[in-house]
C-alpha cells in the first residue's frame, strides 16, 4: 500500500534513488514511522519481469542516460559513453549486483594512518571505524541473509568455483570458500534458496538474491509511510535563504516537472549521479554546487582496482552454470606493502554468457587470437579481481556543458586515471590469477581489462574535518544540516571489498540517526 503525500507536504523526508543506499534508508525510516517520498528515475521491475538474456536485460535495466568519459582508463576508449554498468530501476543496482557481502577490514577505515603518504593519493581516515560499524554490519547481514554469517550456511560450489578452489589451494591459499553472499543457501526471509540458475547480473528470477526491489521497497510501502514515485528523475535540489534545503525539482515520466517539498533530502543516486545533482543544484548562494565548500564534491572518484582473468582448459567447465560470483580467494586482501603496493584485493569467480564474453573479453579485439578464445568458451573458467584503488582528487565527476541529457542538463563526465598503486596491484593480481589457473592445467589465460564500473565510490566523501570532504560521520553534509548523502559516494576510501554491504549498513545506521534527530527536533 502506497502512501500518497502532497507535493506541498514539507514534513516528508525525500530520498533520491532506491538502491542499496536509498531503498534501504527509505524502508528503515518508514519502519520507524517517518514519512518518506522516494523518487526513483527508473521503472519498477520484479522477478517475473527479469529477462535471462544478457543484452535484452541490459536494455531493460541499465542506466543509459548521456554520460561522457576521459582519462587513461581503457573504459574511456572501449565504452566511451558507458563509464558505469549500473541500473536504472526501483531497487537500483541491487537488481544487478552479484551479492558479495564482505565487511571492511579494520585498517581499511584508517588508510591514511595505515598506508602513510602515498604520492598522488588523497588518502584520508574515515571518521568511523570497524568497531562502531560492527552492530550495523550485523543488522545488514541479517537483512540481506548473508551466507556464512550468523547461522546461515554457505552456498554449494559450482564448476567455476571448483576450478578456482583447486587452483588456489594448489598455490597455498587458505581463505578460499564460496563467499559471504546475499544469496540464500536455504529459504530465508520469505525468499527462496538459490536454484543455481546463473544470470545473477540480470535480476534473480527466484528472488534468492537480496534486492531492495522486492524486499525493502514493498515492506516500506506496506507501512503506509513510504511512497515510491518511479520514473521520477530529480533535476535539482532547492534551498531557502537560510541555506537549508526545502525540496527537489523532478521530471515525471512524461517530462512534466514537479516540486516536492521536503524537511530533509537524502541523495542516493550512485557516485556519478549524486555529485552531479549537487553540482547541477548550484545557486547564487552556492555557486560551486550544494555542500561543496570543501571543493570535494565529485572528486576522489573510485571504481575499485578491477580486472578479470579467464582461462581455457582442455576439458569443459561450463562456468555459466550456477551462481555468477560463486566463490572467493581472500588471502591477498590483506595490507602487505612487500608486494609492491598498499591495500589488497579479492579474487571472486565470475562468469559471463557468450554474448557478454564476446563484448568484454578483449573489447575491440578481432581475428583468430580473439575467436579461438571464444571457440573454447565451454572450457573457460573466470574470476574477477576487486581491490582497493587510491582516491585521487583529479579522478572526478564534472558537469559536461557540451553534452546535455534528455532534460537539457549537463551530463556527467567521468574522468579516471589509474594510480601507480592501482597498476601495481592489478599486475600482481593478474599474475596470481593466472597462476591459480595454470596450477590446475590452464592451456591459455586472458588478463582481461576492467569492465565499465559497477563499484562507483567516493565522490561525496565522509570526513571528520569539513575541509577534507563533503559529509560527516552520519552522511550529513558538512554545509547543510538537512541534506544527507546515503550511497557509496560517502565512502572515504574504497577498501578491497565489494561495497554493497557497507552501503546497506551505513543506510541502516543513518536511518537510526535521522529518525532520532527528527524526534529530538534537531532536524
Amino acid at each position: 500500500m502506497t502512501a500518497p503525500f502532497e507535493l506541498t507536504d514539507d514534513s516528508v523526508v525525500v530520498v533520491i534513488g532506491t538502491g542499496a543506499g536509498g531503498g534501504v534508508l527509505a524502508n528503515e525510516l518508514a519502519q520507524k514511522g517517518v514519512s518518506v517520498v522516494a523518487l526513483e528515475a527508473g521503472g519498477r521491475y520484479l522477478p517475473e519481469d527479469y529477462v535471462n538474456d544478457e543484452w535484452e536485460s541490459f536494455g531493460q535495466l541499465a542506466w543509459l542516460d548521456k554520460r561522457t568519459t576521459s582519462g587513461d582508463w581503457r573504459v574511456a576508449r572501449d565504452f566511451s559513453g558507458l563509464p558505469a554498468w549500473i541500473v536504472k530501476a526501483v531497487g537500483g543496482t541491487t537488481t544487478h549486483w552479484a551479492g558479495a557481502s564482505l565487511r571492511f577490514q579494520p585498517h581499511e577505515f584508517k588508510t591514511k594512518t595505515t598506508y602513510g603518504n602515498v604520492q598522488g593519493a588523497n588518502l584520508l581516515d574515515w571518521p568511523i571505524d570497524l568497531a562502531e560499524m560492527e552492530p550495523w554490519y550485523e543488522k545488514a547481514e541479517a537483512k540481506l541473509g548473508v551466507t556464512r554469517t550468523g547461522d546461515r550456511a554457505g552456498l554449494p560450489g559450482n564448476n567455476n568455483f571448483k576450478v578456482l578452489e583447486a587452483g588456489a589451494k594448489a598455490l597455498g591459499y587458505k581463505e578460499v570458500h564460496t563467499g559471504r553472499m546475499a544469496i540464500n543457501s536455504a529459504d530465508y526471509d520469505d525468499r527462496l534458496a538459490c536454484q543455481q540458475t546463473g544470470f545473477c547480473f540480470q535480476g534473480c528470477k527466484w528472488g534468492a538474491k537480496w534486492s531492495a526491489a522486492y524486499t525493502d521497497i514493498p515492506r516500506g510501502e506496506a507501512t503506509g509511510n513510504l511512497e515510491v514515485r518511479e520514473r521520477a528523475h530529480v533535476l535539482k535540489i532547492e534551498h531557502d535563504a537560510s541555506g537549508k534545503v526545502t525540496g527537489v525539482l523532478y521530471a515525471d515520466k512524461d517530462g512534466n516537472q514537479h516540486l516536492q517539498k521536503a524537511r530533509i533530502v537524502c541523495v542516493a543516486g550512485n557516485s556519478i549521479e549524486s555529485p552531479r545533482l549537487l553540482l547541477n543544484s548550484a545557486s547564487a548562494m552556492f555557486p560551486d554546487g550544494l555542500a561543496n565548500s570543501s571543493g570535494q564534491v565529485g572528486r576522489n572518484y573510485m571504481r575499485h582496482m578491477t580486472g578479470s582473468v579467464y582461462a581455457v582448459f582442455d576439458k569443459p567447465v561450463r562456468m555459466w552454470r550456477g551462481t555468477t560470483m560463486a566463490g572467493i580467494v581472500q588471502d591477498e586482501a590483506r595490507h602487505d606493502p612487500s608486494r609492491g603496493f598498499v591495500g589488497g584485493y579479492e579474487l571472486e569467480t565470475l562468469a559471463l554468457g557468450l554474448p557478454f564474453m564476446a563484448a568484454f573479453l578483449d573489447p575491440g579485439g578481432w581475428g583468430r587470437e580473439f575467436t579461438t578464445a571464444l571457440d573454447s568458451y565451454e572450457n573457460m573458467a573466470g574470476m574477477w579481481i576487486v581491490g582497493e584503488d587510491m582516491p585521487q582528487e583529479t579522478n572526478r565527476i564534472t558537469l559536461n556543458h557540451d553534452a546535455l541529457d534528455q532534460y537539457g542538463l549537463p551530463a556527467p563526465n567521468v574522468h579516471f586515471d589509474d594510480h601507480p598503486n592501482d597498476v601495481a596491484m592489478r599486475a600482481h593480481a593478474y599474475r596470481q590469477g593466472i597462476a591459480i589457473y595454470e596450477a590446475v592445467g590452464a592451456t591459455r589465460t586472458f588478463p582481461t581489462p576492467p569492465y565499465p564500473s559497477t563499484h562507483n565510490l567516493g565522490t561525496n566523501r565522509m570526513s571528520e574535518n569539513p575541509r577534507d570532504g563533503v559529509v560527516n560521520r552520519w552522511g550529513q553534509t558538512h554545509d547543510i544540516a538537512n541534506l544527507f548523502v546515503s550511497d557509496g559516494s560517502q565512502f572515504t576510501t574504497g577498501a578491497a571489498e565489494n561495497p554493497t554491504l557497507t552501503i546497506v549498513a551505513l543506510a541502516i545506521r543513518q536511518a537510526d540517526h535521522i529518525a532520532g534527530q527528527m524526534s529530538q527536533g534537531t532536524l
Partner: protein
Amino acid sequence: MTLKQKGISRRQLLAGSVAAGAAFVVGAGFVAAPTAAWAMEVSHLQPATMATLIQMARDIYPHDHVADEYYAAAVKGYDTAEAAPGIEAGIAALDAAARGKGHPSYLGTGWERDRVDILRGMEESVFFQTIRGGLVTGLYNQKAVWPLFGYEGESYSKGGYIDRGFNDINWI
C-alpha cells in the same frame, strides 16, 4: 533460409548465378552457398557486395565451426536503403585495398592471412569499426549460434542447474 523453402532447386540456383570467391555464388538479387545450403535475398545491396561483406564478417570473427549462414544473418541488417550506400562505398574501398596489394578483389584473395592483412590496413576506419562493432552483437547474440559454442542460454525455464549439473565437473 534454405533454397527448398524458397522453391529454388540447386540446379536452378547454379544456372542463375556466378561464383563469388570460393564460398559464395551470386545471382540477380541473391547470395547463396555453392552447396545451396542457404541463400539470402538482397534488395538494396549488390549481391556481390553482400557476399564480400559476409566474407569480411568471417575474417573479422573467424569460427571454423560456424557456417556462413550465421555470418550472413549477422550482416543482413545492412541491406536497407539507408545503409546500402555506406556499405557499397566501404566494400569498394576494401576491394580497392585488395587490388592495391595485387589481388583481383577482396573475395578473390585466396588466403585468410592476406585478407586479414587488408583488413588490418583499414582497421581504424569508421567502416571497419562499424562492421566489427555490429558483429559483436549481430553474430554472438544469435541464439542459434549459442549451441555451437556450448552455451546454454537461460535455464530458469528448466529450474536452473540445481539438479542439472551446476557442479558436475569431474576432472578437477
